[in-house]
């Protein structure tokens, strides 16, 4: 039991989902560890146990599927069908007859199928991880342990985990989860992206949170990254009341983005397909600032055809008949392999053939995509812009823009994700119509810190002054040329950072739809001069934590 008389303990992590909340900790159950194999005396009984375990996993996944909706429901239902797969039962039966106990027979059967899927690579390779989730559930059942996964303590809770994987959080109910806190993970980790998509307060990289006992009441500040463990019920109630007040204040703001003195800032949304915006409140949203087109290409043996692409793009353009939709051409390659690209494995995928670089060898994929965007744009009333990912030089930018224009696309720009591109922003804007800064990759390349690395999360922080300085250089180039410079990375979703970005000269912010109200509210609270003052303070700081502190305290 938590010691109720001890003073609250302060833990510090990185705030990635702004907002306040407080509640009791419930931990993500860890996957079960396999005990040593034991000799099998009764194979029939052992097999019956293993089959029961698979049935329990299936029933658990089926129940979760029925409680979920939309895409989560489909994913979980497919997972349940895998658990019920007769080939799994046959495999397990074979291992049990070979002398393995139920848990080990399950483990080795799942491992064999996992390897098979992983060897197929691409989208199917990623499904190998889903198989692990089913395996963990079946093994837990065979060992008589609780199923791993989201806890259900029967009351609202603060979800605590080492780190969260996509499969862990499918069907996460924002009605009962108050906040997310993870021991590991960085600002671009899945937890961070999920938190912002769900509008949940979240802190990642919070050392020590796993040692906080289950049931302890914690107060989470997703803006400052502070977690206070062991607060009293009164303080928790106070925090929740402040959070509710904050939320109603946020949702009161309507209309397009602007500073307190009326300087307009385009608030836009990032989407992966038209379906992402179902049910979203798009009041005052100027359009789509980042339309990721990868979904069309995932899990394919061949590139999607022209007509199929035209139809998918047209669907997205129809969402904003009077707005702007910025299409990013295929961002795949060494880091996000697609089978039909036929690219060799590389030792440093992040520094390899990815994004626009894929067009060096496979120009026809880019050409088909540009033609499809142009055709869909012809039928649409939305203002369609197109941009290329992973551009490093003005020559690459010029070649892309020329290609896009050849297909009749009027507005063609490039993403700034590489420091070289930011340093040459003036030259880029001599050929490109606009720049869009992808802060996740730009911070990875500027600070030389892998986006996936939880240990380097402080370096990947979008508040790093070096990153802000490169953004400032792009914005300054935009001002000189009268062209648009936007930010479409996770940085744009941080309400505290929004006035800083605007102060640096950024004119468009693109984020998940749920982040819009908080960003809009924060911008409306500062006039342009105040934004510029905050930008100067952040640029003057020695590191990300100092920059954040300087802005939040002023």
């Amino acid at each position, binding site marked *: 039991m938590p010691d109720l008389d001890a003073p609250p303990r302060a833990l510090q992590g990185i705030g990635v989902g702004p907002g306040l909340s407080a509640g009791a900790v419930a931990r993500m159950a860890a996957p079960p560890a396999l005990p040593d194999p034991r000799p099998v005396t009764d194979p029939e009984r052992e097999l019956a146990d293993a089959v029961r375990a698979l049935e329990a996993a299936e029933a658990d996944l089926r129940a979760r599927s029925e409680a979920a*909706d*939309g895409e989560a*429901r*489909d*994913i979980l*239902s*497919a997972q349940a*069908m*895998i658990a*019920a*797969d*007769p*080939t*799994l039962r046959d495999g397990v039966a074979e291992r049990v007859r070979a002398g393995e106990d139920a848990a080990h027979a399950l483990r080795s059967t799942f491992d064999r*199928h996992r390897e*098979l*899927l992983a060897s*197929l690579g691409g*989208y*199917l390779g990623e*499904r190998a991880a889903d198989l692990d989730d089913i395996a963990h559930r079946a093994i837990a059942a065979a060992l008589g342990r609780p199923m791993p996964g989201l806890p259900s303590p029967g009351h609202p809770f603060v979800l605590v985990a080492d780190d969260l994987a996509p499969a862990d959080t499918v069907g996460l109910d924002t009605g009962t989860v108050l906040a997310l806190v993870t021991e590991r993970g960085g600002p671009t980790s899945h937890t961070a992206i999920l938190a912002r998509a769900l509008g949940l307060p979240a802190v990642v990289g919070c050392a020590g949170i796993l040692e906080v006992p289950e049931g302890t009441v914690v107060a989470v500040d997703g803006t400052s990254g502070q977690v206070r463990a062991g607060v009293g019920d009164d303080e928790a109630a106070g925090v929740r009341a402040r959070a509710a007040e904050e939320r109603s204040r946020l949702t009161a703001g309507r209309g397009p983005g602007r500073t307190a003195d009326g300087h307009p800032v385009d608030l836009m949304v990032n989407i992966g397909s038209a379906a992402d915006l179902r049910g979203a409140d798009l009041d005052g949203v100027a359009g789509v600032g980042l339309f990721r087109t990868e979904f069309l290409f995932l*899990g*394919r*043996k*061949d590139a*999607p*055809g022209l007509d*199929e692409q035209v139809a998918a793009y047209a669907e997205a353009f129809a969402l904003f008949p009077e707005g702007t939709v910025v299409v990013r051409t295929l961002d795949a390659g060494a880091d996000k392999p697609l*089978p039909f690209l036929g690219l060799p494995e590389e030792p440093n995928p992040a520094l390899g053939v990815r994004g626009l670089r894929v067009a060096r060898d496979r120009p026809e994929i880019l050409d088909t995509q540009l033609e499809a965007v142009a055709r869909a744009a012809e039928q649409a009333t939305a203002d369609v812009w197109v941009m290329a990912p992973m551009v490093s030089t003005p020559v690459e930018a010029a070649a892309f823009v020329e290609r896009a224009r050849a297909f009749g696309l009027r507005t063609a720009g490039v993403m700034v994700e590489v420091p070289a591109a930011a340093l040459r922003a003036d030259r880029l804007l001599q050929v490109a119509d606009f720049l869009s800064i992808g802060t996740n990759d730009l911070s990875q390349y500027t600070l030389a810190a892998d986006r996936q690395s939880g240990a380097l999360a402080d370096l990947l922080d979008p508040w790093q002054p070096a990153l802000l300085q490169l953004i400032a250089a792009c914005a300054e180039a935009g001002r000189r040329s009268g062209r648009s410079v936007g930010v479409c990375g996770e940085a744009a979703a941080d309400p505290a950072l929004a006035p800083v970005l605007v102060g640096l000269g950024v004119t468009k912010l693109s984020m998940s739809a749920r982040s819009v109200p908080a960003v809009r509210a924060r911008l409306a609270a500062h006039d342009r001069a105040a934004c510029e003052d905050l930008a100067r303070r952040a640029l003057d700081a020695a590191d990300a934590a100092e920059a954040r502190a300087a802005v939040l305290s002023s």
Partner: protein
Amino acid sequence: MPTRTVAVAARTGLHARPAALFVKAAADQETPVRIRVGDGPAVPAASMLAVLSLGVGHGTEVTLEADGPGADAALDALAALLARDLDAEEPADA
């Protein structure tokens, strides 16, 4: 042996929901049905893992085969299912 060859119409190919619908329908048939791509090995259509591992994309032609009583009816039903864009159809119970 009776067979049917059909192009998969689902936009995402035989993954996730379309695969689940197909596998479930195959399991409901009285006769075991197998599925293959081109001259590849035929795998049980009622196995989610086997069907997923085929990695069937949109527009890929697959061949269904079955033997025994009711084989033709089972093949017709499953071929008709694959010829529909299963992604575009809303789940009936949602």
